[in-house]
């Protein structure tokens, strides 16, 4: 299967499909309520000329809207995570643990942090699945 360009709608569709297809996701995420946005800071030197906003809707093991969106929609999510392109890539490739990135300030989060910590298995699960999406990164094109 061909690689999908990172952080495009096609990539979001592939990511959503991978989550839906995961045999454990529904059980692990049965208590999770709420949307998550990923904001990717621009880095022209790595092929990311503008900020990218990605919106993902999760609800009790089901997966809803997964879209590339505008700033307003991204900021409307229950949880908003922001970081540089290079950090997100490291997280996706499992070169950087998301918790570690948060504690180091490499990723920033707005939202109910205790809720996220209570549901850290869900976070780890979706990151694990993200690593399975065959991705064409802009700085590797």
């Amino acid at each position, binding site marked *: 299967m061909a690689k999908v360009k990172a952080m495009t709608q096609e990539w979001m569709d592939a990511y959503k499909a991978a989550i839906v297809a995961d045999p454990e996701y529904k059980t692990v995420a049965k208590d999770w309520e709420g949307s998550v946005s990923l904001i990717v800071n621009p880095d022209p030197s790595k092929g990311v000329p503008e900020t990218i906003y990605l919106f993902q809707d999760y609800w009790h093991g089901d997966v809803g809207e997964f879209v590339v969106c505008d700033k307003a929609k991204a900021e409307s999510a229950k949880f908003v995570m922001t970081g540089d392109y290079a950090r997100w890539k490291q997280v996706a490739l499992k070169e950087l643990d998301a918790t570690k990135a948060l*504690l*180091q300030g490499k990723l920033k989060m707005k939202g109910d942090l205790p809720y996220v910590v209570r549901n850290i298995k869900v976070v780890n699960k979706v990151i694990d699945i993200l690593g399975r999406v065959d991705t064409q990164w802009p700085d590797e094109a």
Partner: protein
Amino acid sequence: MADTIVENRAEEVPFSYVITDLLSSNLQQKPDKMKTFQNMWGVVGLNLPDIEAAITMIFAGGRVRIEPGIVGKPDLVINSSSEKIISLNAINIKFGLPYYFDEAGLNVLKQLASGELKIQGMFTHPILLTRLTKIMSVM
């Protein structure tokens, strides 16, 4: 409310913002944690060598000040990797006490046994440790 009782003076340590956020949210959301917090006196160091970050939390009966680095000689010093420290926040509280006999609790005991988690002062300041666990638990 919580901003006035959790004073973060460790702004150069990003990890301090996570601790401030967790503690402030817990105190706002759970009145029983606030009650415990108001009875806490003592100094706790949190050291995460893998990311070269450390803070000291100075509790003073309903207020806490967070300083960068390990300051003075804390009553408790928790040494852990950044990836494992979050597991401490997942400990369940039963009958007002940390509960170590479920998955989250056993995970912490396993880390203590293996040396991945080290808590200096845990035997000399068990009440402070219990109260700290209670206010930092997100469960």
